[in-house]
């Protein structure tokens, strides 16, 4: 009964988020994020239909659907990086290339394990790939959060909401995944029970923060600080080389 309530509430919230984004225009602004919501909605509807009409199909459908959701969730991170570095085209290109490389490496690693017969069945391989991607995603997300805070990159209210909800969901999921295989861990059982509720909470955050369009913070006009950056970087590198030589000399016994 409770599971059904959570399922239907999640579907309702996802539909509201998608409809609202179409009306406000945020759908065009954050297409990857709303594709993720659409993907989750689709897998939930398919799951519900399979559960009601063809229960035998539910299990074979579960892992591919889960993998599709995790792949779509990786795209959300690309979206957040894309928007937070929108005023820095060089950094934007670099992060997009890095995200793509990490993604390809993770898939290649899982594929090689599958080819070498490390997994008993395709569903196990899919589950392992999903888990690995989630861990990689978590690592990159942590780095991104640290960089955003360290460099104090200003975020608009919509992007902030998107990021907060996403961090909450990925964080809880990673802790849950880690504790999943600890036998008899009471906290793991509790967390697994709470997972659907945390998803509803995440959807609630997105629903509130993406309800209307908020302006993005304006990047300050170019100043002398920026124009001098290349020159300063060159000078600093020269100082670094000199200092390293000096430090090496001091540390020598």
């Amino acid at each position, binding site marked *: 009964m409770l599971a059904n309530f959570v399922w239907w509430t999640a579907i309702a919230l996802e539909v509201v988020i998608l409809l609202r984004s179409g009306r406000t225009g945020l759908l065009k602004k954050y297409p990857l994020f709303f594709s993720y919501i659409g993907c989750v909605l689709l897998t939930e509807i398919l799951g519900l239909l399979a559960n009601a009409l063809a229960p035998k199909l539910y299990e074979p459908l579960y892992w591919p659907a889960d993998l599709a959701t995790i792949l779509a969730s990786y795209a959300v991170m690309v979206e957040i990086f894309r928007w937070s570095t929108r005023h820095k085209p060089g950094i934007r290109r670099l992060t997009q290339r890095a995200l793509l490389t990490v993604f390809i490496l993770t898939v290649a690693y899982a594929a090689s394990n599958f080819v070498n017969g490390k997994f008993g069945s395709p569903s196990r391989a899919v589950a392992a790939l999903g888990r690995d991607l989630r861990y990689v995603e978590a690592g990159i997300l942590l780095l991104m959060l640290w960089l955003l805070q*360290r460099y104090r990159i200003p975020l608009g209210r919509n992007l902030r909401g998107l*990021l907060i909800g996403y961090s909450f969901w990925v964080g809880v999921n990673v802790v849950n995944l880690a504790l999943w295989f600890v036998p008899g861990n009471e906290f793991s059982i509790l967390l697994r029970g709470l997972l659907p509720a945390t998803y509803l909470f995440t959807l609630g955050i997105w629903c509130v923060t993406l309800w209307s369009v908020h302006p993005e913070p304006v990047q300050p006009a170019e*100043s002398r*600080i920026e124009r*001098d950056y290349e020159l300063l970087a060159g000078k600093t590198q020269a100082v670094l080389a000199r200092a390293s030589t000096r*430090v090496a000399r*001091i540390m020598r016994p």
Partner: protein
Amino acid sequence: MTGLLAIIILGSLILIFGLRIALQSPNTRTQSPSITLEEFANAREALDTTFVEAAAIERIFSTEDMEFISHSSSPQARRLFLEERKALAIQWLRKTQKQVAQLMDLHFRLAGHTHEPNPRFELKLGAKYLSFLLVSYFLLFLLWLRGPFKARRVVAYTSHVAGYFCTVFSLRLESINAVHLGPDDSDPDTGV
């Protein structure tokens, strides 16, 4: 078990950082990376103090005073001298750590202000800062454990790396035109 712990820490850190972002004011003014004249002046002052104090710092770790006290004073005076020097050394190290952290913060904010920061340079500087933190905390532990006279080599390293940071930021601050910086918003009477 180690892997499990690492993943739990990873997930928990994501939640903590997410919460920090959620608790920050959504007001764009407080999120702005602009640097005020006061911060700029404080950074300059911190740098100047570091350079001026170099001779005094050398003296804290100098073995000459220790040799003199060992030869001519009672054990009680020697113990008092050691305690005093240890406290001074720890105080100096904590102050240096704080100053370098302030300068790094200023640098991060300047880089956040820049349209095209150089990722390679940022990475190198970040690695250097991380190594400084590790060595300085190790030195702090060493000072606390063995006193200032048995940690001279690590002191030399820390002092030079701190000097490097000061040179880097001195170069950077020299190139900043103070006219372009934001005014200090605080009330001069209340300091708020």
